[in-house]
């Protein structure tokens, strides 16, 4: 096999493993990848695109709900957090999901400062994940361009 493709494949494997080891992704992402096939070749990119659109929308909703003058409607904030928790769980976005669990508890406790801090962390975290996954797709493109195939990565 061409040495460039082989080298890229090894780097790709290490990169994917690091995403799991650092807690960015969990088993649900593996499930997502397993559903991609010749009949749905862009499925993972499509569902992640929907997820990141969701993040923008829901983080915006949370920010507006927390920015209200007067009494904050924590149930409104909580509703958006709940939605983001569900969608992050569905794509295997482990850190985002974890933050949403904490955020939900802060909403239930009506902890305003905690919610604001958590929102900032959620914002950073989903953007970080997005950048990392864009790098992953770039790797895949480079492997294919070098004549290789994208390897399945065993995370166990």
């Amino acid at each position: 096999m061409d040495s460039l493709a082989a080298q890229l494949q090894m780097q790709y494997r290490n990169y994917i493993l690091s995403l799991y080891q650092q807690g960015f992704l969990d088993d649900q992402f593996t499930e997502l990848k397993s559903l991609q096939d010749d009949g749905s070749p862009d499925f993972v990119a499509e569902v992640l695109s929907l997820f990141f659109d969701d993040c923008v929308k829901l983080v915006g909703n949370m920010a507006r709900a927390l920015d209200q003058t007067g009494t904050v409607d924590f149930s409104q904030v909580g509703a958006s957090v709940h939605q983001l928790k569900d969608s992050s769980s569905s794509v295997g976005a482990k850190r985002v999901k974890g933050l949403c669990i904490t955020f939900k508890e802060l909403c239930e406790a009506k902890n305003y400062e905690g919610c604001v801090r958590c929102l900032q962390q959620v914002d950073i975290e989903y953007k970080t994940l997005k950048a990392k996954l864009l790098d992953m797709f770039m790797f895949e493109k480079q492997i294919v361009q070098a004549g290789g195939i994208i390897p399945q990565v065993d995370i166990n």
Partner: protein
Amino acid sequence: MATTSTGDIEKTKSVEVKKKLNVLIVDDDPVIRKLHEIIIKSIGGISQTAKNGEEAVNIHRDGNASFDLILMDKEMPERDGLSATKKLREMKVTSMIIGVTTLADNEEERKAFMEAGLNHCLAKPLSKAKILPLINNLMDA
């Protein structure tokens, strides 16, 4: 198999063709709708989606909808999963309805959802491994 006419041959052929599983996916989250669509496609089924319980009920109003399976989210705007399930059963919809809940839902909430008329309840996120045994039972029935 012996047949006596062209009509009988056509009828025999259509009985032998395996029916594709026809699924209605009801969820307000586009990420989850997409995920469930692809899971159903991966097991050879076809699907239609609804963004909330009210849309799911409206799809059935003319009496022509015929789904083998409905995947029903619990928390949705306009009409939630519990209300939609109750309404569909009142409308004599006999499809298998699987409620899709979150781990945060407590036992009482899940029980109330089941009592609305579900056949089964599964926790998010769904996967092929979770749903396949239920679908195999449905297809065998």
